[in-house]
């Protein structure tokens, strides 16, 4: 997030797009509800009539995968109606002229034909966002899990830049991170493009710095993403893999392909806290300490660096991840893995990462710092981009709409979109083992609009077979107007409804993030599944 969570009640207009916040980030959503109660304008754009819509002044039920068209048309209206913050654009951005020329072609009427929402509503959204003195954008995976995920994010950046909604309170571009420490995994350099602290791998100076620190030459070019790594496992170029704390088989797209990739490896080591579909494929399974047993650090969605603490001893022989990984490193004869405690590891991270340079284990005791914290006297950075952008000027990107990788046709006439539910978390390795959660949600359903239930010969509470180009699942039907006509929804949380058997039609060319939000399917009535086991 460019802005802190406590900023969420300050915008005049709040634009939530592709974020089912009341279910996926419920505590953050309480701040939005309070902002609305105090008079903020809330725009919600989402294919599904998610609970947040009940708090919205304007709801844009866009067709799945049509975000770029909506955002282009909003930019068009902002430009046409003189809502551009010309002063901000002149002082702090570049390439606006080309962008301005570009968006003049994309009217709300054009976008209506793609997004399937009225042009007047698109224009109204543009005025609410562009006319506000402080407007904030919040988004989640509904923006990024598309073949055009980068385009979607850059389209949001264009809107914020043209209206001057960056670098100030109650504004900004705010991705809501979905996992407790997914921001931290990036901060730590567990990504193929960056060393710790987002120091680019393809900068030879950075590669040289880490070569010196880690005691061997390191390639001064980006590595490959997980998606490409799984492809290379399938074709035999990657032979050994370490997977930590991820149930790859269930959470990743195109399950059959993923299982084939992992089965092709000579050597798979999995570190986890529970047996999963992924540990079942491993050659070596190493038991890790869980939350509540582990001292360490998380970074939250607002870049706040916070301590986590052990409250109870580990179960059985479980050991902290850092100890396990260090033991493997030492057995490979590598120097620099002689840590005695989590704080040794964290303090080393602070010493090699400029955004953590002002931090150490003791200084984060109260969770008072949001990175970057470049030195010991720095108070942290709750709001990014105040006064200047890190890389000079904010650049406009000329972006055009593209169809999803797969679109509906006669054989697969229904849009499937996937996501999460309040009462389950990811593949339920944790929440599924918490007593009582079953009372609230005990099985997966496919959410279908009541009109479609009738038209497709389904019955509410009966079963349906959902089939994509890659596979087929059987799932109970739930009739609900939360799904728009022609679009159905499933979460990927339940192992007996492996929705990612269906997904995986395409990937963003830059990030290789899968298009998990769009998958054309066929939905047909079927008999109840025969229970296994």
């Amino acid at each position, binding site marked *: 997030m460019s802005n802190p969570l406590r900023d969420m009640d300050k915008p005049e207009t709040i634009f939530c797009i592709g974020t089912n916040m009341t279910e996926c980030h419920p505590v953050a959503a309480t701040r939005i509800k*309070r902002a609305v109660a105090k008079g903020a304008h809330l725009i919600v754009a989402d294919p599904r009539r998610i609970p947040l819509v009940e708090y919205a002044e304007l709801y844009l039920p866009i067709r799945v995968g049509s975000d770029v068209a909506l955002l282009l048309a909003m930019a068009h209206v902002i430009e046409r109606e003189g809502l551009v913050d010309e002063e901000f654009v002149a002082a702090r951005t570049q390439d606006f002229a080309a962008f301005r020329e570009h968006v003049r072609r994309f009217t709300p009427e054009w976008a209506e034909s793609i997004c399937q929402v009225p042009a007047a509503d698109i224009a109204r959204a543009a005025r609410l966002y562009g006319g506000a003195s402080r407007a904030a954008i919040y988004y989640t995976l509904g923006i990024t899990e598309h073949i055009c995920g980068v385009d979607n994010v850059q389209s949001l950046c264009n809107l914020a830049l043209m209206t001057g909604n960056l670098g100030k309170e109650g504004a900004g571009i705010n991705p809501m991170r979905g996992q407790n*420490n997914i921001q931290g995994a990036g901060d*730590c350099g567990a990504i193929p493009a960056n060393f710790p602290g987002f120091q680019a791998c393809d900068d030879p100076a950075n590669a040289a710095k880490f070569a010196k620190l880690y005691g061997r030459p390191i390639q001064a070019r980006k590595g490959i993403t997980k998606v490409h790594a799984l492809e290379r496992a399938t074709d035999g170029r990657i*032979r050994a*893999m370490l997977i930590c704390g991820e149930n790859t088989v269930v959470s990743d797209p195109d399950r059959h392909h993923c299982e084939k990739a992992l089965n092709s490896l000579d050597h798979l080591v999995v570190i986890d806290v529970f047996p999963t579909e992924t540990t079942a494929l491993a050659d*070596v399974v190493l038991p890790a300490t869980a939350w509540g047993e582990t001292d360490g650090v998380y970074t939250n969605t607002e870049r706040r660096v916070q301590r986590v603490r052990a409250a109870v001893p580990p179960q059985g022989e479980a050991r902290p991840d850092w100890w396990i990984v260090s033991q493997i490193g030492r057995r490979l004869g590598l120097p620099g893995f002689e840590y005695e405690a989590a704080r040794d590891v964290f303090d080393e991270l602070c010493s090699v990462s400029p955004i953590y340079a002002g931090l150490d284990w003791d200084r984060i005791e109260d969770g008072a710092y949001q990175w970057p914290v470049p030195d010991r006297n720095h108070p942290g950075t709750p709001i990014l981009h105040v006064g200047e952008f890190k890389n000079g000027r904010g650049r406009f990107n000329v972006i055009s709409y593209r169809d999803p990788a797969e679109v509906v046709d006669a054989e697969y006439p229904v849009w499937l979109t996937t996501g999460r539910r309040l009462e389950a978390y990811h593949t339920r390795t944790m929440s599924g083992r918490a007593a009582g959660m079953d009372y609230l949600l005990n099985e997966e359903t496919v959410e279908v609009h009541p009109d479609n239930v009738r038209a497709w010969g389904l019955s509410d509470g009966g079963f349906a077979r959902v089939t994509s180009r890659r596979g087929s699942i059987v799932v109970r039907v739930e009739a609900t107007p939360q799904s728009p006509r022609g679009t159905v929804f499933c979460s990927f949380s339940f192992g007996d409804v492996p929705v990612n058997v269906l997904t995986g039609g395409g990937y963003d060319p830059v990030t290789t993030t*899968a298009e998990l939000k769009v998958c054309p399917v066929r939905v047909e009535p079927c008999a109840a599944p025969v229970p296994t086991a």
Partner: protein
Amino acid sequence: MTETAPIPTKTQRASTLVLDGVEVPFQDGESLYQVAQRHRSEVPTLCYDPRLDAFGACRLCVVEVEGFRTPVASCTTRAAAGMKVRTRTDALEQHRKTLLELVASESRDSGDAHGKGTPGHVDPLRGYASQELATLTARYAVDGTRFAGAHSGRSHREDDNPFLLRDYDLCISCYRCVRVCAEREGDHAISVANRGFHTQITTEFGGKLLDSSCTFCGQCVQTCPTGALADRKAMRNAGQPGELTKTRTVCPYCGVGCSVDIVTRGERIVAVQPAMDGPANEGALCVKGQFAWDHVQHPERLKTPLVRDAAGRLVPASWDEALGRAAAGFAKALREHGDESIYAIASGRAPHESAYTIQKLIRAAAGTNFVDNCSRA
């Protein structure tokens, strides 16, 4: 609630008033209660939660203000320059004791083993604020006999949800639950029906919470000052021996990063409670953070290393053997297939120290950037 109001900043013009004979500053808009609390005057309350709009229901926080005919509720009275305020007079203390005797007459035996027989005493596992009434009845040496008689509130015993015990027999009608649900959560799942001795906290149509707009976030439980709303899941551990200890940490679910206290007795986790001063959540939690914690000590946890045997089965192994096998596999791949033959996926669920060592392992062992995390799916 022990949270204190913010100290006025230099940019805000501070006026002063006289509090128990001492001149003290305050900032515009502050209530007398906030001023008194910041100066550690121990003004009692039961209906006050610093996160909620002041309500003025319990009248325990009354203070005397010179020139005012009767004592006023300090939580709903704005501080004004030159006020002379007394928070601790014999008359006020007698007034508070009488009010507490009325409140205590509402309270019934919780049945909890903890503090049995004392009015208002309930097991602290019931919730974060559950000891507030008991603390005040002890401070004012109040028992429930003086006004013993009719009660308001009837426990909702039919609600079989696993998380929120609706023990309204202990309810004192402070409305904190109703207010936190409306003002903080925006859910409006619970409301008040009737008046006087017929007062009842309820949901629409008096049904189960499951059939209401309740999201089971547990905020009503954690603000309840009597334990009438209680953490039913935690209460299952009421018999667990050992001192009750709290450890401050951060929730393991989504990326909001809510601060929580893990509540333990001995080596068992018995509850999670919200951290009222958590920077990301300011006391709020959701159903997962509040109630989905018992995976940690679940019997299905992986407890020993496992290695695949000659027959292809995963079998228990010593750490030494498993780590040797793990390292040997990577060494073999590097030796036979080169630096680009090994890969690692770090976790977005594990702490920094996990991700940092994993990326270092790949970069130090292979000299590649063949490492990723689970952010792409």
